[in-house]
């Protein structure tokens, strides 16, 4: 019995994480879409407190950040680390157990956030019981992965292992110090802590995991080694040092100490160094393989992610400059920026990894290549609309705040932007449903394909 619910089969835990992640993706995006629609139709759910915008927002953010992206990334880590270490995962059972814990947190957390059981700090809205469970889950995963690395069959660690293991060092720490359950401060200090945490789950968790995954995917898909190993390690260490102190750039005009702001600005600018080194490395590794984008869908996802990574990482340091921040802070521009990082970049990365990894692990071809392409294009076009509408709305708001026009005088000029955002959101939501359907049908229908035919994961020619 325990075998059925806590499988010890090789590769069962990444699959479990990935399937759960896809489920939460649909739920989380649905909540986000409904919230976005309420900007166009504010009285859409009037009187239903669980569906009011302010309840949907934390439910959406936490579900996509912890339910979708974290679980998808963890699944990828559980897939990539054993592969790169040429060994088995230390304990599939333990990882599967962790996945139950994590699913419980996301499900119960979703419901409790909708009911207003919230901590009230952005990205850290889960209350005490969930915080403790998340931390337990992270500790178990770290333990599991470290034991796996220790029993590896290769001598030197590939850069992806560095990135992923780094993430599993940092994230438990970040989570521990960033949540009020464990560390509570008063007043403005709580704001500083809030953004230390808020920015570092991005930097020390999503970014390092995402980049680690992409470093695995690019050489794997092209069949050529990564362009420069030392450059990739340089990127790792510079991220390690430059990312952590930047959180205060969310509070640049608030009354926090000036030296702290200066520190945040300087390090934010310095982030260009790891970013450029990572991107140069990706693009140089692609030399001679660009044609593959036409046939290889996982690679196409990853490289589109790399393109958005470029956008978000140029925006980031630029926004942290005081002059720019002065202008665009508080506006929807920033919301757009946050989505380029988590949706444009890391979601694209991990979807690439999932399409590839799921075929590997199940030994089945994807159910429909046409649906994969629909997924790609709907997500890309939807996201582009979404991103540009928020950016433009942000610039309009920036004018309003900068010249101190009363909100009522310009809020109506934003209406078209909210509409376009909802349209983009609908497209992305649809793409996620297709994704879920496609994976579901793959699980159900297709038969096992011989391993050697799976190498280039989704070639177009052979699609249905």
């Amino acid at each position: 019995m325990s075998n059925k619910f806590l499988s010890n089969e090789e590769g069962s835990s990444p699959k479990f994480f990935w399937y759960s992640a896809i489920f939460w993706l649909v739920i989380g995006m649905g909540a986000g879409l409904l919230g976005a629609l309420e900007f166009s139709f504010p009285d859409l759910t009037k009187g239903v407190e669980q569906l009011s915008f302010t309840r949907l927002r934390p439910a959406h953010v936490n579900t996509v950040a912890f339910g979708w992206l974290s679980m998808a990334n963890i699944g990828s880590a559980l897939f990539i680390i054993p592969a790169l270490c040429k060994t088995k995962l230390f304990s599939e059972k333990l990882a599967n157990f962790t996945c139950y814990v994590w699913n419980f947190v996301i499900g119960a957390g979703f419901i409790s956030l909708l009911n207003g059981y919230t901590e009230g700090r952005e990205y850290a809205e889960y209350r005490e019981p969930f915080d403790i469970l998340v931390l337990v889950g992270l500790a178990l995963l770290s333990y599991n992965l470290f034991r796996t690395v220790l029993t590896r069959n290769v001598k030197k660690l590939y850069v992806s292992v560095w990135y992923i293991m780094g993430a599993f060092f940092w994230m438990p720490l970040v989570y521990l110090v960033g949540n009020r359950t464990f560390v509570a401060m008063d007043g403005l200090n709580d704001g500083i802590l809030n953004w230390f945490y808020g920015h570092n789950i991005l930097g020390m968790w999503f970014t390092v995991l995402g980049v680690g995954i992409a470093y695995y995917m690019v050489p794997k898909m092209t069949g050529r080694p990564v362009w420069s190993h030392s450059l990739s390690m340089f990127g790792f260490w510079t991220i390690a040092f430059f990312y952590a102190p930047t959180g205060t750039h969310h509070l640049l005009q608030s009354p926090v100490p000036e030296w702290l702001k200066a520190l945040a600005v300087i390090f934010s600018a310095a982030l260009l160094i790891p970013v450029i080194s990572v991107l140069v490395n990706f693009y140089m590794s692609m030399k001679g393989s660009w044609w593959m984008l036409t046939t290889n869908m996982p690679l196409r996802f990853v490289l589109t992610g790399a393109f958005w990574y470029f956008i978000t990482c140029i925006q980031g340091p630029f926004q942290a400059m005081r002059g720019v921040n002065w202008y665009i802070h508080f506006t929807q521009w920033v919301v757009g920026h946050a989505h380029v990082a988590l949706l444009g970049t890391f979601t694209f990365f991990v979807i690439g990894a999932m399409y590839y990894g799921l075929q590997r692990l199940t030994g089945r071809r994807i159910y429909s290549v046409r649906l994969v392409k629909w997924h790609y294009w709907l997500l890309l076009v939807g996201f582009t609309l979404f991103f540009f509408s928020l950016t433009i709305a942000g610039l309009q708001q920036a004018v309003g705040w900068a010249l101190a026009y009363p909100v009522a005088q310009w809020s109506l000029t934003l209406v078209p932007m909210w509409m376009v955002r909802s349209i983009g959101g609908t497209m992305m939501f649809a793409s996620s449903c297709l994704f879920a359907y496609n994976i579901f049908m793959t699980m159900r229908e297709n038969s096992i394909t011989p391993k050697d035919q799976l190498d280039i994961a989704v070639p177009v020619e052979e699609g249905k």
Partner: protein
Amino acid sequence: MSDNKKIGARGYVLPALVVIFSFSLIYIVVVLIPDMTMVKIHPSEYAMEYVQKDEKGEILRDDKGIPVPNAAGRGRKVYIKEGCFYCHSQFVRPQDRDFGSRVYAGDYANETPNILGTSRTGPDLSNEGQKLPDAWHIGHLRDPRAYTPGSIMPSFSFLGDEDMSDLVEYIQSLGQKRFEDPKNRQIYEAYYPEADTAFWKKSEHHKPNVDSAAAANAGAGIFRQNCAVCHGTNGLGNGPNALAMAKKPANFSEPFYKSYSDKTWYYRVAEGVPGTRMPRWKLKLAPEQMWYLVAYLKTLPQEKEVIIEKFQTINDKDWEDQSSLPQRLVDTYENISRMKDNGTYKSNPGGEIEGVAGGH
């Protein structure tokens, strides 16, 4: 397997230590040091305390030793639970106009968790207290679009009476201490921008002779059209809209206004009065029109303040006869009268919406 054991962590212990050590160091520098050095030493005079106290000024605590929040403190919890901070910030930036005086680190000393906010879909609320009457807030929270057409603020009509009353109490407490301190008004006074040459240069464009009777006459017309709703037809601050304002419009009969120079008048009209409903007319009127207004305002009798006894009303009946009100306002009235019955409605001194409230 035995071979693998030998590879183990060799060569990677140092990097792992560096990763953890550097992260901890950064944490200490950017979080712990500010925490140790900043607020605890300087709790400011404006820091609000959202707790109940006994006669001796001791903070009341429950069995678990947690301070018992007062009504505004409970309202703060509602504010967090309902996520108002996703759309409303609570810090006034150096460059902000119209949101009242700035907020400093010590002002937040007793508040936790922070609700600084990261996005301004709606205005900053740091100094929102006392600006509008309770009834306005209740109505607005129930149905924002009835009060501000086109607003995208969600409706919070699902809030229970207790929560609603606490939340409004909290809103009214925001910036209260800053507001009461006369120092903070002088900040605005000091901001007399002689140096803002662009502003004054623009004002010179088509500047009429402000001492002429013709200009004053023209100003009177503009005043009736734009200002009388608040300032009253005679500039006594008793227009019908003033009824619903916590911070009443200026009564120009106060002798104090004799001290105003042309430029001061002009500047006030053009820039509005931060923290009140007085609009910034330069967004709507041309410099020439504002100078006409100055000419008119100067001619108002400012020898002896006229104490206003009654607000001018468009039609008192409209407020009493609820059948003629749109449904959304009827809802608000029902809510308020229910809250009055069960004792959760505490009207603020700024004025009630029905009946005629006290003067300036």
